């Protein structure tokens, strides 16, 4: 009877473990194994190449250029975090009328399918008939018109802005949850001590949402490094590979060039980068908080 009781918890989690194992761990393991083989996806023959795919990866300028674009994108992803925090604080503290409506409006882009967002922004950025250049012309700022998705120097920024627009609402909702958890008496105490709004923000609000910030930064970082869909739909990695990221590289190598083993190696590389950053970031945060 006692044994039965001990097994019961395992049985409860068994379905979850099975689903997790079959749909996540198994494919992950398969990807790692595949990265040591050469396979075209068509032939029944696999060729063992050992670490050759990884050696190639470290010598492949296209992968490094894509990784660099991911880094640039990560830096640009600070924008929705800051904006999310700002809006969260504004809605939390100012408590305007229709606060829930604002919250809904700001969160709305996040629930839109990425393809819809990508196609909409593609139209906004269209150089001759797009809304952005049309508005710039209409307000007498024709000189600021750009070939937003066609100029290799600005296409990545244009993409990141579209993605940021979709993501800031999510950051805001997480920050609002964090802000609600701050004890109001801390603000009262700060007021008694004579702190002004800015001082309260830096000494009460920011430390108060520390854990939320960690979560937001990690989620945004992971989503940014594995970004694929918005790039694929809006530019396909162009113009002239200027918006190529690791996600599109994996897709290109695995499914377009049918170099499955190499694509798997790039995917493993991306997963390792995410893992290292996550571990280092969490450790640093733990030490800072300690």
């Amino acid at each position: 009877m006692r044994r039965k009781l001990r097994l019961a918890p395992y049985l409860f989690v068994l379905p979850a473990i099975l689903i997790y194992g079959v749909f996540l761990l198994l494919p992950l393991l398969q990807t790692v194994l595949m990265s040591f083989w050469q396979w075209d996806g068509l032939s029944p023959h696999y060729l063992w190449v050992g670490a050759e795919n990884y050696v190639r990866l470290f010598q492949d300028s296209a992968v490094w250029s894509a990784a660099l674009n991911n880094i640039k994108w990560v830096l640009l992803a600070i924008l929705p975090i800051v904006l999310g925090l700002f809006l969260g604080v504004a809605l939390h503290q100012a408590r305007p009328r229709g606060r829930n409506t604002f919250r809904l409006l700001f969160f709305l882009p996040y629930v839109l399918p990425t393809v819809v967002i990508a196609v909409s922004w593609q139209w906004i950025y269209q150089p001759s008939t797009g809304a952005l250049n049309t508005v710039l012309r209409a307000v007498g700022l024709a000189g600021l018109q750009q070939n937003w998705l066609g100029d290799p120097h600005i296409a990545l920024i244009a993409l990141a802005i579209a993605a940021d627009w979709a993501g800031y609402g999510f950051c805001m909702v997480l920050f609002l949850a964090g802000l609600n958890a701050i004890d109001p008496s801390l603000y009262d105490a700060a007021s008694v001590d004579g702190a002004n709004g800015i001082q309260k923000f830096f000494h009460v609000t920011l430390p108060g949402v520390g854990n939320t910030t960690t979560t937001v930064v990690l989620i945004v970082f992971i989503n940014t490094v594995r970004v694929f869909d918005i790039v694929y739909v809006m530019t396909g990695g162009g113009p002239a590979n200027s918006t190529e990221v690791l996600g599109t590289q994996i897709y290109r190598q695995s499914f377009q060039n049918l170099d499955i083993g190499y694509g798997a190696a790039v995917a493993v590389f991306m997963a390792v980068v995410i893992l290292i950053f996550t571990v280092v970031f969490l450790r640093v945060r733990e030490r800072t908080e300690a």
Partner: protein
Amino acid sequence: MHRKWLAAAAGGAVATLLLSGCVGSGGSASGSDDKTINYWGFTGGISSVTAKSVIQAFEKSHPGYRVNTVVMNTDDIDVKLPTALGRASGPDLVYTGTEPNHLGRYVQAGKVLSLKPYWTKEGWNNLSPSTQKRVTYNGEPYAVGNELESVGLLYNATLFQQLGLTVPTSLADLEKDMARIKQQRPDVTPMDLACGGPCYSGLHMMHALGYATIPTKEVLATTPVDDGNYTDPAWTNMLTTFQQWNADGYFTKDASGIPDPNHQASFCAGTTAMMASGPWEFSGLAGCASQNPGKFSLAFAPFPVDGSLPFQAYVGTGKAWFLSAGLKDEPKKRQAVMDLVHAMTEASAFPSWLTKDQLIPAMTFDPAKYDLTEPQKQTLQIMTKAGANGGAVDIGFNNSAAETNLWVAGLQGILSGNTTPKDLVAKLQAQLEIDRKAWKANG
């Protein structure tokens, strides 16, 4: 008791693995059952007026058979076919490109049924010679070509008339026309180009310019099975012309940022004068004259060729039907699929292909028997005129996906001032050498 629980858990895990399809390849060699024909492909072979009515008639004449159609674009099909061909959920019949990068790679992998034993019996030996050549790999036919294509100059005849322009017959004339359009009508773009996204319009322009400036045999030599080189100066010169036309403002402004799917819109509206493309545009542009009266009328002409060359043009079949090799062991179903392809290519379907879908059948036919539009007549004339100087386009789209990506990125780079023709040619040559090695290793 502990053992029992472990056994149950292991059993559950194995069952889940089996259900998820993670163990082995499973399933029959092709098709979901004996009488369901899984048919995947580009829109023209599935959702065009003719294809739809042929499929309907086939289902009536073959009781019990059902055609399960899945329309896909180029990117989708090339991503999904490699893993789906020969599997239970995969296609029995496919309608896709005929080039080394499409049909060729599936043939190399042994996933396509050789049609040699059925070729004459089914009447496919009446396909145009260039089509038969196009679908033949290792000496055997593997696919049945549908329409015959050519790249030429689509132009707005109304605009040409208004500006007093004549249809260019040499490359120099074309450049003069573009310069005059730019000068007389600054609101009109001389040549349509859209190179954002897949950049098909840029690739068509490159094909047209390729045949306009490089001898056919050199164009066709840059394939995995031949020994031509992109480092031949003719390629750099062609790309330099492309670069110059962009610098001169002849192409659509900011073409590197304009999505390809909408590139015909300005041509249709009468704000772009010309477009390098082919008969596959005819049906889409058919309504433009009535939508924009007094501004647009469609005309098609040979894309002019450099004075030092005889007339030449791309002539070939772009898309074709092929059968999954899995049908080899399913004679009844194989025959049913053959019947379907036969129905698509038999003479009774020609009037519909020609008039409703505006496509020119790849099977030899007598044009005098059909009511062809002027652009269609012009297409046939281009094909006849090109004769032995015509050839398939084994460049750009087709040697490998990696090469196509290089072309797209390179053309975008040239248009945005980020790449030089020399850089692009060097990259293309390096890729061609990789493709040749792979082709030899697989062959």
